[in-house]
């Protein structure tokens, strides 16, 4: 059994076979499925039917894949407005699972799965794990939160179906994470990158180097993270860090994932059809151009999503991937248009600040961005923890470090920044999705 799954990159692996489908066949399959899902929505979701009727579009108008551009977009507020069950396309009797977003702004977003949807989710999760080199011989410590959040159970079901040994530890409880990682010999961890950094740090305080443990692969997702952050994680923990992408509105984790090439995330486009659009005009952009990722669920039954705007900024990569997969890749997402900060009229993303900070040798990835107003002017302050390796013994050495960080950030974002160095472990560590920005501008 092990050799069967270990041959994870082989087209002979029946579960991963669609990853290697010739492009023409994939397009044919996508069109067939797109026509099906549009009809399914039109027949069963009143909200969707009204939208098409308003535009005088009939499901039969979808004759080519390009015709998808005729269909209206769906956005997060559509889910919120139809809370809880307004967008269901099947009777409740057919629903086997409900998940919901944390709902930080009012009502949560509800997502649902039929038995068939669960099979699709498990399928894309198995393919995701195989793409990261995980096999049935692995012991996977799942540190994503279990519960309404799709991360925990999504990873769990996929890893179990793959035949790996799953440790359903969930998020938090850092000392226990480290103890089990050591005692059980976990070879894979699935976790948010920010929480993993915290685990590495606490382990080091306990005198345990993650490098010396059997851990070899990290499956990181649920928050944007930069290439620079990956370099730090791989170096500090001696593992391969792979990015997994997903969102509850589409299915949860397993929409896309990196492969051994670690160069872009393959989208499981037999189930999730990707488009890149211009965020302002809604116009579809050609492959290779940066814009907002829009996804259509081609097979989802419970809550199909037609042209869902993800708010994630990326592009579809055009070159063939070294790993041999033919399914298209998107560039690693490090920015969400939702995270964009407007500072003195300039658009700034937290990921740009992270990349600029980590470009300075010896800096730690523990930082917090503060936005304040001074005399009606936006002020950007970045608090960064200092470590002993960087700490020169003179004031000029520390001032030098501060100005190097400030210059690096300013050169990237184009806004001057106040850098404040703080003592170690004074910036709060995240147990799940990291909060990196504190905006105090509207509190006055």
């Amino acid at each position, binding site marked *: 059994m092990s050799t069967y799954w270990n041959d994870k990159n082989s087209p002979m692996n029946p579960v991963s076979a669609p990853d290697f489908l010739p492009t023409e066949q994939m397009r044919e399959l996508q069109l067939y499925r797109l026509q099906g899902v549009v009809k399914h929505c039109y027949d069963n979701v009143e909200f969707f039917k009204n939208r098409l009727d308003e535009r005088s579009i009939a499901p039969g108008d979808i004759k080519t894949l390009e015709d998808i551009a005729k269909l209206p977009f769906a956005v997060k507020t559509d889910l919120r407005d139809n809370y809880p069950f307004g967008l269901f396309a099947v009777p409740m009797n057919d629903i086997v699972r409900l998940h919901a977003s944390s709902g930080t702004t009012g009502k949560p977003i509800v997502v649902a799965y039929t038995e068939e949807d669960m099979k699709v989710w498990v399928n894309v999760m198995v393919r995701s794990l195989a793409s990261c080199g995980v096999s049935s011989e692995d012991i996977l410590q799942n540190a994503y939160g279990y519960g309404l959040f799709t991360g925990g159970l999504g990873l769990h079901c996929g890893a179990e179906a793959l035949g790996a040994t799953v440790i359903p530890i969930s998020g938090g409880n850092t000392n226990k994470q480290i103890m089990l990682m050591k005692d059980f010999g976990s070879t894979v961890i699935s976790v948010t990158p920010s929480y993993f950094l915290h685990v590495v740090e606490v382990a080091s305080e306990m005198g345990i180097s993650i490098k010396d443990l059997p851990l070899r692969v990290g499956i990181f997702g649920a928050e944007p993270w930069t290439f620079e952050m990956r370099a730090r994680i791989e170096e500090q923990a001696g593992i391969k860090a792979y990015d997994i992408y997903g969102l509850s509105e589409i299915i949860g984790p397993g929409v896309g994932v990196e492969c051994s090439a670690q160069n872009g995330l393959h989208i499981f486009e037999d189930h999730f059809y990707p488009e890149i659009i211009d965020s302002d005009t809604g116009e579809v952009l050609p492959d290779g151009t940066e814009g907002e990722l829009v996804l259509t669920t081609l097979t989802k039954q419970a809550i199909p999503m037609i042209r869902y705007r993800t708010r994630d900024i990326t592009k579809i990569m055009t070159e063939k991937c070294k790993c041999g997969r033919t399914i298209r890749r998107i560039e690693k997402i490090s920015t969400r248009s939702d995270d964009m900060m407007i500072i003195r009229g300039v658009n700034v993303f937290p990921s740009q600040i992270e990349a600029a900070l980590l470009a300075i040798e010896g800096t730690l990835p523990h930082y917090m961005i503060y936005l304040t107003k001074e005399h009606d002017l936006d002020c950007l302050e970045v608090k960064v923890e200092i470590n002993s390796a960087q*700490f020169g*013994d*003179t*004031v000029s050495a520390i001032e030098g470090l501060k100005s190097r960080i400030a210059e690096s950030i300013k050169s990237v974002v184009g806004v001057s920044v106040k850098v404040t*160095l703080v003592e170690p472990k004074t910036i709060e560590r995240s147990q799940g999705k990291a909060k990196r920005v504190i905006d105090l501008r509207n509190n006055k």
Partner: protein
Amino acid sequence: MKIQQLSLFIENKPGHLISICSDLDKYGINILALSLADTTSFGILRLIVNDWEKAKTALEADGHVVNITEVVAIEVPNDPGGLVKVLDVMDASEINIEYMYAFAGNPELNTAALIFRFDKPDVAVEILRNAGISGVDPIDVFN
């Protein structure tokens, strides 16, 4: 003549200095000399203690950023012009003093002790020895 000095990064906020001093107290470490360089947002506390290794371990365990720097302890006559003699020697040799501060004096011998951070500590020690300037030995300091 050469002594290990602890340097600590501290935020310029109430309560930060006392937490360091309490740690040292807890481990029975005595501060022999100190200097505090301050800026608006942070300070660097420089300490000469009786057991620097123990102090470093204790402070790092409590999450402080500690650096060890080699400094030079020199004994000068407690008279007008006592310091000038040392500075003259260093000036002639183009050794830069990054910072300095006073140490405890010895009333019996009418001497004062000074801590110097030179850009080239080893060269500085050589030059001082040749000029007949006596250093303060770690053993004398710590006992």
